[in-house]
């Protein structure tokens, strides 16, 4: 589904990602772990299409297509979803209006008729239960005044509505208490199918108690320095990242 080959990325001339390769297939859950400032969020943003990064070398192919040929919105329409580390507040745009516009853009892309207001509300109602989002949030502006937990749940809620092929969850666990963490993880697990894939970016092992990864990669200084199964996460939790630096 996603193939990253020898990727190099710079911001303002400073190299952040220094030759990263990764292969993600349908049905897999990958966890990318690593200390702060190693390029985890950069990788997520580049896959989703954020501006301001220079790809100096390497390629990313998604479903057989060169990802850099696609705009941000085309990537989303092709099934890529980024769960933001810091979801953006958009005053004045209601959640309902925002998600209905998004859903209908996806439907249009697939050659389907737009969803009626009633059908959309029904769909919203069904999906919000998955992440236990309160009904009243749908009338509020996107993320405005949401608590940290509500914002993260809202990301998973949007993911549930858009049903992506490839979901990248950037530090979705940060700022969550244990109950919220369970809800978010539970949402992600329920959305998992054999046809979609998830990349979980996290700092701590904690989230991986609830979202069980098939593969764990350690990102350090712009490169994947170690890959393994879920047991690698436990090892990291125990020993910290220091032992990897030495090796």
């Amino acid at each position, binding site marked *: 589904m996603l193939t990253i080959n020898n990727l190099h990325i710079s911001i303002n001339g400073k190299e952040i990602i220094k030759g990263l390769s990764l292969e993600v297939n349908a049905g897999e859950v990958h966890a990318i772990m690593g200390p702060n400032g190693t390029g985890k969020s950069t990788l997520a943003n580049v896959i989703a299409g954020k501006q301001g990064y220079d790809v100096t070398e390497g390629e990313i192919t998604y479903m057989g297509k060169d990802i850099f040929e696609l705009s941000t919105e085309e990537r989303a329409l092709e099934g890529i979803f980024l769960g933001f580390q810091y979801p953006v507040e958009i005053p*004045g745009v209601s959640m309902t209006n925002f998600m209905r516009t998004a859903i209908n*853009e996806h439907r249009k892309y697939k050659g389907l008729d737009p969803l009626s207001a009633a059908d959309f509300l029904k769909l919203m109602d069904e999906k919000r239960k998955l992440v236990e989002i309160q009904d009243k949030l749908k009338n509020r502006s996107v993320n405005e005044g949401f608590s940290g937990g509500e914002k993260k749940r809202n990301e998973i809620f949007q993911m549930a509505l858009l049903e992506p092929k490839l979901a990248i969850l950037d530090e979705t666990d940060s700022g969550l208490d244990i109950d919220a963490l369970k809800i978010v993880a539970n949402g992600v697990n329920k959305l998992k199918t054999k046809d979609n894939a998830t990349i979980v970016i996290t700092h701590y092992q904690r989230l991986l108690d609830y979202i069980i990864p098939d593969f764990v990669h350690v990102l350090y200084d712009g490169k994947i320095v170690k890959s393994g199964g879920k047991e690698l996460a436990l090892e990291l939790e125990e020993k910290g990242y220091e032992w990897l630096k030495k090796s």
Partner: protein
Amino acid sequence: MLIRVKKQESRIMEISLQNKILKLFTENKEKIFRNDPLEIMKLRKKAISEFERIGFPTTTIETWRDTDIKKVLSQDFSFYFEPIKEKIDIDKIFQCEVPAFDTNIISLYNGWYTYKDSPLFTLPNGTIIGSFARALKEFPDLVIRHYNKYAKAKTDGFKALNTAFAQDGIFIYVPDNVEAYKTIQMVNILNKEDNLFVQNRNLVIVGKNSKLSLVHCDDSHNHRSSFTNTVTEIFINEGASVDHYKLQNLNNNTTLINSTFFHQEANSNLSSFAITLNGGLVRNDAHIKLNGKGGNADIYGLYLVDREQHIDNQVHIDHAEPNCTSNELFKGILDDHASAVFNGHVLVRKDSQQTNAYQTNRNILLTDKATVNTKPFLEIYADDVKCSHGATVGQLDDDALFYIKSRGISEHNAKLLLMYAFAAEVINKISIQPLKDRIDDLVKKRLRGELAICDQCVLHCKDQEKNINFEIDMSKV
């Protein structure tokens, strides 16, 4: 100066500069103003000498620094001192398309009050609505008691010019304790083949504890240059409330100088909106005097301008008495080479304790050629007050754009969502639901670029062509 006398004996004069206007006054005052009451004539003479002294504002005056009218004044304009005689079907021109918006529509056509039945009518509750010129004849005492009492502005050449020349406009009188009431819609339409210079004078008197909603629409129906210099005085007596909306949707060759003077007595309430969707050069001066305790004024503005358009909003709030509140929120989106000015001046006098005054002006510039000059300004002499002011000028938020696009929404729609959200803060303050829905719709159309202004107006932007298509019933020939 050219003076041509037309068949209908209306005088057309092409003018361009101050001295030509002065000459016009001297040469025509006996004929044009001969029926005016003495008091009005005195005011005219005083005003014309004031205009002679100060002339048109130039950019050397602080409040005109960023609005240069030299170029528009260099054009040739026609003055009419009598209504232009032509057949118009008012119902066809003024079909209001706001669904479920039940209003009393009154209209000025090329600067003159137009009517079907009567130039001045009295409703069962005692409210008088109609032509200012006619009101001056029928109710001279009432008019003179209020006329030119509130339009006080230092060194305002346009106001002086208006007082010197204005002959007609809208007159509204609401007696005391009149509540439930249909919205009055004042429509000012320009549609003439020469470049008109129009000077209206509107007077609105709202009695104690009464309520009035007033929608003031300025529209043009052709592409000609025109210059409108309107002065409106609105007196709001104790405990009364006024909901006031100015909607401006004019062609790009239009100049509109719109001065509104609100005089508020104790415990009165005002909410006023200036919504500019299109216009060549638009200047809105709102002067609010809070002249009694417990008064409240909410002054809102929204401007969406592009191409070479220029919009200037000036708000002067005079907290002359204690315990009053004023709140200003002006927001604008500027595209292409458009320019905007905001000057908010709040004056809190020495004894006006417990004043609350808030001022906000926010702007989004869509290009690096668009400009905004904003100056929120507080002048406070009392010590027990709560005042704040703020202004921002920025672009659409890149992080928000990325967030929206990452959900599969196109760049174009993402920008529309953000711009609409920005404008909606002002639209949401509109309390008349059908009007709010209509303006909401117009703003969306404007943002989508669907509102081709020149041929359309706020009132019937869907089927103008149908309106002017006369069908002849052959069976009756």
